[in-house]
């Protein structure tokens, strides 16, 4: 699955978040999007799914312009993409199992027995095999995020959009999630977009790095090239992040 974003603008109540953002996401590769808080990274992910519509500009998926697609037209596209929200965004009225089975059940993609097997398998991989009947309110932030990851994986998506996948997760598990992302990309060829602040994770994973500043891409390139960037905003971002890392 290939994404092309061109000259995208988006405002919320007069707050101009995206100001002519353009980027290309290559099929089967891991693209990492970096940028300060509130720079529009999550807004970008929601545009890639068609959850938000740009004020101007376009989003293309596999060569098709989906910018003006209706909800009905977007449905078959969304089934092929998994979006993992920053806070997990689990449905609180459903159990862990029901949350993970939601997509498969609603679209009747598998018989109930098979759904149960798939969900259990994904949850076990993420260390939550014993929490099937738990309500999201009884889980920690990290657990909720892992359930959200399992929910996205049950649909076997062709592309996965990760919003801060390792934030709030302990380092060993974060490392396992990184490995999982890399493995899915290498083995199944899943197109991956990772929005993160975690530079270790970003540089471990990325085939391509983009940096957003004030609603635009100000730097892009493979990780090694990106590290050598002379852009002052990138330099400041990398320096500050590494400083924080050193203090720890």
């Amino acid at each position, binding site marked *: 699955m290939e994404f092309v974003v061109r000259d995208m603008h988006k405002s919320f109540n007069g707050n101009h978040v995206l100001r002519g953002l353009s980027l290309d996401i290559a099929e089967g590769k891991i693209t990492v999007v970096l940028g300060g808080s509130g720079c529009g990274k999550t807004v970008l992910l*929601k545009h890639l*799914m068609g*959850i938000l519509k740009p004020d101007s500009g376009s989003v293309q998926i596999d060569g098709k312009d989906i910018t003006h697609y209706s*909800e009905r037209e*977007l*449905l*078959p596209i*969304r*089934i092929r*993409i*998994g*979006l993992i*929200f920053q*806070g997990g*965004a*689990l*449905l*609180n*009225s459903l159990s862990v199992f029901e949350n993970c089975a*939601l*997509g498969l059940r*609603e*679209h009747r993609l598998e018989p109930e027995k098979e759904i149960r097997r798939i969900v259990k398998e994904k949850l076990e991989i993420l260390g939550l095999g014993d929490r099937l009947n738990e309500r999201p309110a009884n889980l920690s932030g990290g657990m909720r995020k892992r359930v959200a990851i399992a*929910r996205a994986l049950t*649909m076997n998506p062709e592309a996965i959009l990760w919003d801060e996948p390792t934030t709030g997760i302990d380092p060993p598990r974060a490392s396992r999630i990184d490995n999982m992302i890399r493995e899915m990309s290498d083995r199944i060829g899943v197109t991956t977009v990772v929005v993160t602040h975690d530079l270790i994770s970003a540089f471990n994973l990325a085939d391509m790095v983009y940096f957003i500043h004030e609603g635009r891409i100000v730097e892009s390139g493979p990780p090694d090239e990106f590290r050598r960037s002379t852009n002052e905003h990138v330099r400041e971002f990398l320096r500050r992040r590494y400083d924080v890392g050193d203090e720890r």
Partner: protein
Amino acid sequence: MGIVRKIVHLFHSFFLESGAMVCLLGRTLLDLPAALRGMPRTLSCMMQFGFYTLPLAAFIGLFIGMVTSLQTGLELKELGLVEQVGSIVGLSVVQEMGPVITAFIICGRVGAAMTAELGTMAVTEEIDVLRSLGISPVRFLVVPRFVAAVAMVPILTVYSIVIGVWGGALVATSVLGVAPDVYYKRMFDSLELYHVAIGMSKTFVFGAIIAIVCCHTGLRATNGVEGVGKATMRAVVVSLTAVLISDFYLISYLSDFWKSLLG
């Protein structure tokens, strides 16, 4: 200039919101067959809206009947017409008080909960999750609530009316000294089938109004917990107002319609 701009903005918002609610109603009606597929969700909403509202509907229905009976009965007693209290309680409770007050109860109890629930889902990105999974929020969330409200408002109204009529009888016999058989005879003599039809047909419309207004307001909630609170308050105010306004027009149109059909 500021006032003119505010008035223009107010009208603009009014037409924008009304249009969006009509669109939501249209999409809900188109997706109605989905209610069959999502039967467990619909039944759960029916339980929540209907079954758990029964005690409140009974309590309020009882007092509506008792108050109507007492207030009219005392006046009628002075005129020597106290035996007519049954017909007045019957007509007012069946045609007007029962449906409208039950709709009010549902607005306050069920409608507010509906908006708060959907509003919380909207601000915690749960609605976005549904859309990201290719699940229509209208089909998944609005249709079951719409079906439950349209089904449960009439049932609760009937229940409330029955208790109200019984409450009226309680006051008529114990306070006003009217014999129970006289109370019920006068009531059934004055009540025509079209009175019942007018009262009951309104309840379906009230159910639809409450569900659409409350779901629409909830789905559009923004700005966190504060936004959910404001949306809930707005939903209750708008749905109560809409119920009252629609009641006025429904009486005008439904009276002629049902009278010509059943009168």
